[in-house]
């Protein structure tokens, strides 16, 4: 099977906008809500959503990034060495609603470790999950997103890749036949 694009740049932008408006519907003025992007790839999405949300609401919205590496359950079994990335949370999450943001939801293990990491910064009133791509039927833990850009059905062996305009030149989502191939 050839690599194929499942979301082109036009629909990609529409999807980001829809996610923004869904967040605004539920969080109104974001007084008690903070956005937290999950390292490494979730922060591209969270950067974009945070900028767009501030543009639409004309408000400053608390935003941080979190690295779940130290909380992962596969740091020793993983073939690659897991090198930590930056965590920047310059506010308390206590009694706030936290929206965790990641690009692709697959096994759910990253989100599990991100939630553990998050609890070290205070006890949030509520944690929600926003993902750009939800790969259904591949979950290994009981974790479901609250906001989804696109649901896709894929084989475990396939790989979903998100391209970002500021890195790869175009916004789009690929599905690749196996974990090693590149478009």
């Amino acid at each position, binding site marked *: 099977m050839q690599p194929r694009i499942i979301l082109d740049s036009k629909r990609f932008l529409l999807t980001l906008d829809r996610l923004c408006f869904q967040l605004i519907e539920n969080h109104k003025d974001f007084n008690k809500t903070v956005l937290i992007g999950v390292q490494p790839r979730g922060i591209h999405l969270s950067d974009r959503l945070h900028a767009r949300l501030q543009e639409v609401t004309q408000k400053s919205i608390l935003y941080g990034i979190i690295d779940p590496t130290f909380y992962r359950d596969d740091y020793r079994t993983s073939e690659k*060495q897991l090198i930590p990335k930056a965590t920047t949370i310059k506010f308390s999450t206590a009694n706030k609603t936290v929206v965790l943001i990641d690009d692709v939801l697959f096994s759910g293990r990253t989100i599990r470790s991100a939630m*553990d990491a998050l609890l070290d910064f205070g006890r949030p009133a509520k944690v929600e999950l926003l993902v750009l791509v939800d790969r259904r039927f591949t979950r290994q833990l009981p974790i479901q997103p609250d906001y989804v850009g696109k649901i896709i059905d894929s084989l475990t062996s396939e790989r979903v890749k998100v391209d970002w305009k500021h890195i790869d030149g175009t916004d789009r989502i690929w599905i690749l036949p196996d974990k090693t191939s590149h478009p």
Partner: protein
Amino acid sequence: MNALSVNHLLGIKYLTPEDIEIIFESADEFKEVLNRPIKKVPSLRDTTIVNLFYENSTRTRISFELAEKRLSADIIHFSASGSSVKKGETLLDTVNNILAMKVDMVVMRHPSAGAPVFLSKHIDASIINAGDGTHEHPTQALLDAFSIREKLGTVKGKKVAIIGDIRHSRVALSNIFCLKKLGAEVMVAGPPTLIPMFIESLGVQVEYNVRKALEWCDVANVLRIQLERQEIQYFPSLREYAMYFGINKKLLDDIGKEILIMHPGPINRGVEITSDVADSKYSIILDQVENGVAIRMAVLYLLSGRR
């Protein structure tokens, strides 16, 4: 940028510049962890570490212990005094007995140079050298270079003078390897009797005049006179050493330039460095101690994944 090239930290000699960079980048993130309200992460919760100390230590031992606790590892302490070493047990037997109790990593300090290298050839567990004789003290060199990088932005191209008892110092040797690998210029300075012969072959400059060394450098790493390792007298008296090779405020004021002052501790105040310098704003001695925990967390974390 993805993995260390080694399974043990036996010395800086065995690391590549990329390894050092990976350790620094991880230490940056651990330093952030250490400034959180909850200073602990669960990364090593399934790892047991033995701290094997055949030689006295305060700073290094506490620093390793804190690093291990902040990573949620289980730890055991072993000191040669009060153990079966006194009954004649060999190093290898002692370690094999400890490892038989399912210990995963060994942090060791030993008075003999090369003891960790010897051990690494006979056991599977990851070994971290916490100082072996007058050979190497890799985590100290890493935290020194990390502190320079933190204060000056980079180590590359900086001029670092290592001043004092070079002959008996494992910190000096590890620092030379580490700084050279990171592209710094290194000078050693002190009395001729305390500078080993042929040290130029490591690519360092030698200076016997401390004032000239200070005028040259951006960073002065001042070492302790290790009286416990000096089997013969290398200089007439401590007072004379302090007069000719000690660093004091007047000397620094005369030179009139900003020099970062470092010291691996323990300090002999009034001998190699006076209190007004050790406690001045140019001194980063306590930053070094703080960074030591982050560096050791990074090393333990990265090596624990290498089994």
